């Protein structure tokens, strides 16, 4: 049998009471999680530069500090950090912002630089947008096979940067459209 995947439809503006009631999904790194803890701040901005007012949602999927995914397909999953949950989900607030507590992921598969997989859902998005967060200044970025697919002048849109004056905090803007539009991937 060869079935066609069902079509996506927008999450709309009223998803909160079903999808984002559990604020604990903003905390990927539980007590005792291994690795470098960090706060990751997202801000989602539309094509007019306006923050998406509380009607977008970010989902994260990432490896633990040793680059292991808690999933059967990862041969290292048995050793994945039990105090770390690789999945996160938060709604954005009225400034288009949400903050995850996580750890810096390790390099997975030996080749890829540390990165966090991101899906963006919003009113006005008929299907989710996929992007990745990399860490500015990370030496492994130079050889990352996915970054190599991205034109050099656009790679900066994928780089989280340390937030000035706030320890262990990294920030990234998701620009849905326009000048410095974030690089989105076709999966």
């Amino acid at each position: 049998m060869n079935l066609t995947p069902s079509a996506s439809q927008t999450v709309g503006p009223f998803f909160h009471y079903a999808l984002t009631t559990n604020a604990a999904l903003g905390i990927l790194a539980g007590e005792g999680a291994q690795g470098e803890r960090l706060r990751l701040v997202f801000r989602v901005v539309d094509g007019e530069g306006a923050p998406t007012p509380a009607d977008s949602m970010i989902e994260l999927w990432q490896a633990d500090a040793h680059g292991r995914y808690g999933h059967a397909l990862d041969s290292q999953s048995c050793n994945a950090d039990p105090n770390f949950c690789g999945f996160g989900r938060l709604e954005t607030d009225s400034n288009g912002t949400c903050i995850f507590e996580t750890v810096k992921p390790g390099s997975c598969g030996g080749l890829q630089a540390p990165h966090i997989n991101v899906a963006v859902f919003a009113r006005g998005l008929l299907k989710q947008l996929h992007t990745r967060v990399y860490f500015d200044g990370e030496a492994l970025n130079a050889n990352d096979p996915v970054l190599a697919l991205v034109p050099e002048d656009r790679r900066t849109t994928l780089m989280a940067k340390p937030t000035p004056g706030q320890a262990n905090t990294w920030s990234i803007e998701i620009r849905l459209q326009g000048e410095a539009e974030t690089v989105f991937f076709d999966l």
Partner: protein
Amino acid sequence: MNEYPRMKPGSQPEFLSPGYKSTIVRAPLRPLIALPHTLSELTGPVYGHNPIGPTDNDLTLHFAEPPQGERIIVAGRILDEDGKGVPNAMVELWQANAAGRYQHKRDNHPAPLDPNFLGAGRMITDQDGNYRFVTIKPGAYPWRNHHNAWRPAHIHFSLFGTAFVSRLVTQMYFPNDPLLQLDPVLHSVRDKDAQERLVSQFDLSMTEPEWALGYRFDIVLRGRKATPFEEHGK
């Protein structure tokens, strides 16, 4: 590691679908970059952190009194591209009440709220990929997208399959609804067959006598030749 098949052209909506006005400032305008599927895309959350309550799949039992409206059963299978049921898939849904109003602080449609209806449910598919909800039929509602714009009655679905690639948020519609022809959200999908697959089917065999009409809605998630699912007890 096997990559998943790519999406068939026309079977998914375009980001920029000007009939749906909000896409105009939110759709990315630069071409997306094709990403080979790596371990990052082919793994995904094994959803266990939101505990599922025994009545989470019956939206008519969440309050002391039953909600207003027409009680219905919505059930079906979550399938992969090979037609195999997807077991242990997380299914979340949400909807407006029978009058077409969401229990949401920013829904200002002047239709009555129902104190006995929240409109959110969730469950995990069984070993054959089956799911089943009891709810009430949602009402149509106006949405100011254009003059006299009304959304057809619909239920929002959110699904996690075996991988981050197979993540899907979609909407289920009802058969024979005259608003379907006029809806820019449904028509953002160009392929007519793909549109029709978002419309549920009335099913007499699922209908319970003296109780509730049954609507069948199957959903296909991306993925083939699913790798054997292994439990790592936590």
